């Protein structure tokens, strides 16, 4: 902020680069950014695309069906079953591949709902203020005060463990964090003169929220989306491990770890593979988020 008047007076040179960048289009501008990204971010991006590829083309890549019993229990690694079979004789590799589809898509959907809910309420709080802000704020305080994993377990026990309930419950808890963040960044934007100018023009609440404030808080929200996605992913994996998450026979990395955990006792690392899949995706997403945060916060490498 201190050298605020520098960029605006940078003059013709900057105008040319800006105009040039617009001409190149959004896609090539993004490609340009990616090529300049640090190696960790590139690695993260490649891994995320690999997961997406596997998730989309799961039926083509997997040698066997998702819930198909194809061999004896706990078969060792072999040419027929590359990673062996699980406790009821399903192919481990196929289930790992299908689980990418289930776990990732459920986590994505949950994060999306959490963001829609959280950011909308956060914006509302920041723009309207007053009692709505207070009311929503205290409600979120109450929800955040309860250890979320335990509360999730309670809610899932009460409402049952079908997929919809699972998604909604986790989304609700994550929305509290998103609410906090979006409210915090939005209040800084709401005090700007252009929001007051919009109010003086008589603009209505939805316009102010969606057109004046939201575009200005998107970068931190987008970065948070990546982090939230990882946490949701881990929560679902944890719940599945506890038996309350994604229900059998649907393949899921969390439950795969639990079901095959006994193999560890015999020195077989197969049950660690789904755990590794989770870990790798988490790390990759975080690499990308770090890079994105660094870009949008405007820090310069010295």
């Amino acid at each position, binding site marked *: 902020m201190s050298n605020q*008047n520098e960029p605006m007076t940078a003059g013709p040179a900057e105008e040319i680069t800006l105009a040039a960048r617009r001409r190149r289009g959004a896609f090539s501008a993004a490609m340009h950014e990616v090529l300049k990204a640090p190696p960790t971010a590139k690695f993260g991006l490649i891994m995320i695309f690999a997961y997406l590829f596997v998730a989309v083309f799961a039926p083509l890549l997997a040698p066997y069906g998702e819930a198909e019993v194809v061999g004896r229990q706990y078969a060792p690694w072999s040419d027929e079953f590359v990673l062996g079979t699980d406790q009821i004789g399903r192919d481990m590799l196929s289930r790992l591949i299908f689980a990418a589809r289930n776990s990732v898509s459920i986590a994505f959907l949950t994060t999306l709902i959490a963001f829609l809910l959280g950011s909308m309420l956060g914006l509302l709080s920041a723009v309207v203020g007053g009692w709505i802000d207070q009311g929503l704020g205290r409600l979120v305080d109450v929800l955040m005060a309860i250890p979320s994993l335990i509360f999730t377990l309670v809610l899932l026990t009460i409402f049952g463990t079908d997929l919809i309930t699972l998604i909604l419950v986790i989304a609700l808890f994550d929305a509290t964090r998103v609410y906090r963040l979006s409210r915090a960044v939005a209040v800084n934007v709401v005090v700007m003169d252009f929001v*007051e100018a919009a109010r003086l023009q008589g603009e209505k609440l939805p316009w102010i929220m969606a057109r004046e404030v939201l575009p200005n808080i998107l970068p931190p929200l987008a970065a948070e989306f990546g982090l939230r996605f990882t946490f949701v992913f881990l929560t679902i994996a944890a719940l599945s491990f506890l038996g309350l998450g994604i229900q059998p026979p649907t393949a899921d990395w969390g439950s795969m770890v639990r079901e095959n955990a006994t193999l560890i006792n015999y020195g077989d690392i197969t049950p660690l593979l789904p755990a590794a899949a989770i870990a790798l995706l988490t790390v990759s997403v975080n690499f990308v988020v770090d890079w994105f945060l660094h870009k949008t916060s405007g820090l*310069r490498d010295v």
Partner: protein
Amino acid sequence: MSDATTQQTDKGAGSMLLEMRGIKIEGQSEDTWFPIIKGMDLTLRRGEVLGLIGESGAGKSTMGLAAMGFARDGCRITAGTIKFDGVDLLAMPESERRKLRGVRIAYVAQSAAASFNPAHRLIDQCIETAMFYGVASAAEARQSTIDLFRRLHLPDPENIGERYPHQVSGGQLQRVMTAMAMACSPDLIVFDEPTTALDVTTQIEVLASIKEVVRELHKAAIYITHDLAVVAQMADRIMVLRYGEVVEEAPTRQMLSDPRQPYTKSLWAVRSLRKDEDTSGDTVLAIRNVDAAYGGGVRVLHDINIKVPRGRTVAVVGESGSGKSTLARVITGLLPPENGTVEFNGQALPPALAQRPKELLRKVQMIYQMPDPALNPKRRIGDMLGRSVSYHMGLSGKDRSRRVSELLEMIELDDSYRERLPMELSGGQKQRVCIARALAVEPDLVICDEVTSALDQIVAEEILKLLLRLQKDLGVTYLYITHDIATVKAIADEIVVMHQGKVVESGPKSQILSPPHPPYTELLLSSVPEMDPDWLDNVLAERARGGAGATAVDGS
């Protein structure tokens, strides 16, 4: 060139202290480096004050920092030599340079409030450098700082250092910062717009203190500012900068009386903009007996009565905290008044914004002080103007597009600007867009809240000319809030002087600006720097004789 000129000043006899030759500095934007300083020479002798002036972006601050051998993040010194007291700063390692800064070369920044750590006492921050480099013991450093406080006319010099930054006023803080810079008794001090953020009545105290200390302690100083009248008071010699190059350099008196370059002459001419007074016209806005307070607490406005004639400009003048901006909030409905009414076109306005019909919202528009926060950085210029046009005037499609083109033409911008984002515009262009946005909906009244105070003089003059032209063309009424008397002279028909939430005086411009004045108006008018190098000394001498001096020295 400089050798010849310095001898004309009485203090020019000192030896050469700073010698910068062929300085080139580049700044980074995205991946490319572009030049900020394009080969500049600067010399300074002991005991001499050099004024650097120019618009923002001229390279003044960059040059000032380079005098310390320092380049901001994203900048680099690519060529030239900087000799300080005979030693080449650029040749020595960074650790050596760092030892010089603060001890032998000091820097006073524009915003003292942003430069102090709010969690430490003032005196501890002042003696920090001296302690860090072991220049003096804690007790010695403390004592010499208190002496400096006294020299700078700070109230209660013994104890003021025990306060925290938020416990002193802006003008006092700026003087404390000067004391901090002088704590190690440096040979050279770089002042980077030290009074720009202050009111005129506060500015004069800070200027007087700085001038006195620099003169008495025989320091060399570089004084950076964009205000000609200020530099005329402070400097022995003036350098005019533009686009990273020296336009002209001469001793102060010669520069003021006989500027040679066209650019310098245009800078000098800015202050001569005048408007003929005309106070006819029916009343468009009448404020009657308005009191206002924030959050039920302190009352900010007391019994305000103002009448604004249609098609004219009423200037509301006062220092910060006088309630000028609060008045704007009452008129726009952001702050409903406790008592009194605001009448618009003969009818009382509903006090709160939410109760006002859309038609009324259209008729009162506002232009803000800072164009940056007033424009949404994520929306294109054309979208912003188009939204106002379609929301209030009901235009769409081709009509809307044509109107946006008209508006851009009206503010003298190319049609291609509709595709631009605010960050791709200069400060003056942004303010033009704000003006177009306000006028897009054909309002009766436009409230201008210090619209030129964030801009350079030349740009500000262009904006004022634009406002005047638009008033002539469209017959719009301005309520112009400002603390700058020069601006008032340029555009006002009537003047309202405010102080501490009350109207001190109001009437036609000629009447307010000619004596006799109430005491506050007198103080305000006499505090506005003039282009006369003796102005400051004269005013201070005048005040020392008269009664106004007492209020001027102990601060606000």
